């Protein structure tokens, strides 16, 4: 699997999750970067132009839903697949999907589910392209 060039941005305020995610994705061969809040996440997204964004819905400041809206209305980023991670009940995830997220996982996230979800999103993005 030649996925070494693919870039993933993790926007997550929980430092335990954020670091473990970045580590797991790097171990799987992705180039992973991370941000701890919506504002720095958006900034970093512009810098690195990720292939997939993994986004926590509960963020301090600009929350996850607002981040989705801003990305979807942002020319260069509008098409980037977004995978939402949430500890809330389904309706939060559903409304995120309604806002333009491409998939969701509920916490606690299992490694294999995450990797599979990211692979699916990329496959979908390639088909769409």
């Amino acid at each position, binding site marked *: 699997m030649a996925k070494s060039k693919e870039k993933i941005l993790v926007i997550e305020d*929980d430092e*335990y999750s954020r670091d473990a995610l970045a*580590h*797991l994705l790097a171990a799987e061969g992705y180039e992973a970067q991370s941000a701890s809040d919506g504002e720095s996440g958006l900034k970093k997204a512009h810098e690195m132009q990720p292939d997939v964004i993994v986004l926590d819905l509960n963020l301090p400041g600009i929350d996850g839903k607002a981040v989705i809206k801003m990305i979807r209305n942002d020319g260069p980023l509008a098409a980037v697949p977004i995978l939402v991670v949430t500890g809330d009940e389904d309706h939060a995830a559903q409304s995120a999907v309604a806002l333009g997220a491409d998939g969701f996982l509920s916490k*606690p996230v*299992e*490694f294999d589910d995450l990797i599979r979800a990211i692979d699916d999103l990329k496959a979908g993005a390639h088909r769409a392209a």
Partner: protein
Amino acid sequence: MAIAIVLAVLIIAVILFVTEALPIDLVAVLMLLGLTLTRVLDVKEGLSGFSDPAVMTIAGFFVISAALFNTGVVEAIGRHIHRVSGSNKIIFLGVLMLAAAALASFLSNVVTTAVLMPAVFAIARRLKEPVSKFLMPLSFAAVLGGKCTLVGSSTNLAVNGLLSSNYDKYHIEPFTLFDFAPVGIPLVIIGIIYLLTVGVRLLPKHDAEEFDEELAPKEFVTEVVIASESPLAEKTLAETDFRGTYDLQVLGIVRRGERLLPQRDSRLATGDTLLVKGKLDQILSIKDAQGLEIKSDRTPYRPEEQTDTVIVEAILSPNSAFAGRTLKAMRFGSRYHADVLAIYRHERALHEKLSGIRLAFGDVLVIQGSAENIDQLREDPNFLTLEDVEHTPLRRNKAVLAVGIFVLSAVIAGLGIAPIALVALAAAAAMILTRCITIKEAYDRVEWTAIVLIAATIPLGIAMEKTGAAMMLANYVTRYFGFGGPMLVLAAFFLFTIILTQPMANAACALMIAPIAINVANQIGANPRAYAMAIAIAASCTFPTPLEPVTAIVYGPGKYRFSDYVKVGGLLTLIVMIVTLIVIHLRWGV
């Protein structure tokens, strides 16, 4: 003639001590030989330092310190600072300095500073504050704490040794355990207030040394199990402050076969396996942590309670038959009768169960086994064994015992029920008898340089008295400075001692100046005991330079400059001098 020899020896010794052309303990022994071979001192006088109570006290306290360290007591205090300090940096700094001063009033200043440094790194990272704001105050507080008791500083004990070895001449009662407290405690309080208010502002903002990627210690991965009845069970990662407490990164939680991403509010349960990453010493410290176990540390190959357990780093060799195979498939445990505690892989971090990782050339395994089995592994062509990993297990189950022995001996010495040197030796023996420390560890942890330095320098004081050299030097001081009165003379001595002690070993400096100061005090009608105490305090003022071990160990990690010491430590030294002189004046009316 004898005076000329003593003065010549004194001058040569000072030059050698200051330039450090030779090791300081060797200089002291040469000084002793010079005085004895020229017959200034007879053999008995020349060797008397080695049976001096001060020297035995120092030796005893090295063993007591080591026992408190090896049973995890000192480290537990470091962890507690972590818990109580919350997120306020000034409260943290205050608690840190108070703890350092309290510990250092009985333990070695260097050990105290070294033991509390990891807590500083962990908490500074959490507070997002530069470590340079905490490290120097930590070492300064340890030095201040050392001034509170007789056993807190080598200079206090050295001067005490001088008093006891010259008792027939001076007729000055040696110091008791808490004689220094009336001066030391105000110094600690005022010193800490200064460091919290002014000192911390003067300190630079330097973060911990950013290591070059190549030079950074390797980060290993291992599996940690939450043991039954673990204090961590039913708590979340955030509640236990897992990262801060253990300085390990949690990569995943394995529960009922599922690999889950950790979260701040992940609640740990008995039997959970945590996949963690960290530096090797941090990982090995899990072996001592309560309620946590390295998973592979529980296998049948573990040499239970054996003393010959060896831990080595081994690298998979280029044509190893095991490349591409997992530990499980190659049946590592039964093949080598040893356990793989952790694994490191260059470039790509691991994210799997250890037993399921396919080994590759260059992987570094941390292997534990009996000395015999590890020796067999060293012969095995599949691995290149690197250096042995030093790891002394902490005997936490002995912690209460060690604290009990320590407190009891402090009380006995404090109440003057028995001479302090005997109490120190008895406590050291008790620590060994109760296996808080092994006899080998006890020998290893005594700093023989300090013992030899002080034991061999004490006879200089005897020679200075016997020949009248101290009296002669004192006459000069009295003649030229005596007009100023006892306080001014004492201030001059204090300042001179501070200057001389910077490049010199503190105890040696105290032992050279104190005989002169005591004679001057007698000549001008001042209190010689107060003079001796002031010299001991001045000689341990190591603040303005990073030249003594206790201030030197924070120099690199805090990225300080020499001028930082001169600025922050110079002001502190001035404060110490003023406070000491005022307290001595009020208490002894000097």
